[in-house]
């Protein structure tokens, strides 16, 4: 007997993501899924954003890593709530892993939650976590061809940050060509060239983030 199913394979993840989303909304908490390849600057961006919003916004962080708690320790030094998820070899966070970690986060005390995904441009693109916005960091040393190599990731994000622009004098990266490629694939995307080292562009990124928090949608 044949049974018509026509159900998305990630349906279970999607349902769990919606539960996470309800939990965020119930606590008036804005959640950002932060993705990039390894070393593009996710933790540095969180630290820069924290510095910029200190005393204005109550922020928490969930750190996703294959192993170690180095990033969580770096952020914990800043005195904000941080929870580490070790995926034990897994290449991405999924909604269920996040849901478990959320039990340890003081959701009601926070306004903004960064979820630092595992450094990877492929798998995290598939798995919704229940976040309000998806943000991708690309960095100058990675080269300007990444939108063509990892199209799904570039298709699914709300903002792309081009980090390490302080290295532009030394490396070949065509910001215009990169931005054209990203906008061609994703018409709603916002692009911010930044440097977490010099602080350039962080103001613009933070003001976009604050504007999005006002209308989580």
């Amino acid at each position, binding site marked *: *007997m044949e049974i018509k199913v026509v*159900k998305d*394979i990630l*349906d279970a993840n999607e349902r769990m993501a919606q539960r996470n989303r309800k939990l965020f909304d119930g606590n008036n908490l804005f959640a950002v899924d932060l993705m990039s390849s390894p070393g593009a600057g996710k933790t540095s961006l969180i630290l820069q954003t924290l510095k910029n919003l200190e005393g204005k916004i109550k922020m928490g962080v969930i750190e996703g890593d294959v192993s170690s708690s180095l990033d969580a320790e770096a952020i914990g030094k800043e005195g904000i709530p941080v929870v580490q998820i070790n995926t034990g070899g897994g290449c991405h966070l999924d909604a269920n892993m996040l849901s478990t970690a959320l039990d340890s986060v003081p959701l009601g005390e926070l306004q903004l939650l960064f979820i630092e995904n595992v450094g990877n441009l492929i*798998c995290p693109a598939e798995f919704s976590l229940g976040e309000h916005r998806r943000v991708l960091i690309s960095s100058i040393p990675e080269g300007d061809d990444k939108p*063509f190599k990892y*199209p799904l990731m570039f*298709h699914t994000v709300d903002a792309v940050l081009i980090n390490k622009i302080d290295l532009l004098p030394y490396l070949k990266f065509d910001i215009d060509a990169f931005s054209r490629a990203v906008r061609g694939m994703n018409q709603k995307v916002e692009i911010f060239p930044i440097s977490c080292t010099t602080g350039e562009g962080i103001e613009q990124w933070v003001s976009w983030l604050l504007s999005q928090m006002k209308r989580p949608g």
Partner: protein
Amino acid sequence: MHELSITQSMLNLVLEEAEKAKANKVGKINLVIGGMTGVVGECVRFYFDLLSKGTPADGAALAIKAVSTQAKCRDCGKLFEVREFDWTCPRCSGNNIEVVAGKELFVESIEVE
């Protein structure tokens, strides 16, 4: 690597459907996988054999329909297949591209006994 969790999700979905139909055995699973998902069919097969052991889906045939990434140029309207990560319109060389197909990742149907 995400094939492991994707295969587990797929298997859970199939077993759920089979149980709803009060079936004892799943003979065949028809899957659809789009080119943009980056999901490798051979990996899914490998994990499926491991994960399905001892379940009603043990030994089921996996039929995978691969959907190529299809795009439409927003500037000139040309429909084309994206090959080798070339996201340039073959007619006008533009980069203003809309994805028409390739994001699929679903179980189309199953055959049960």
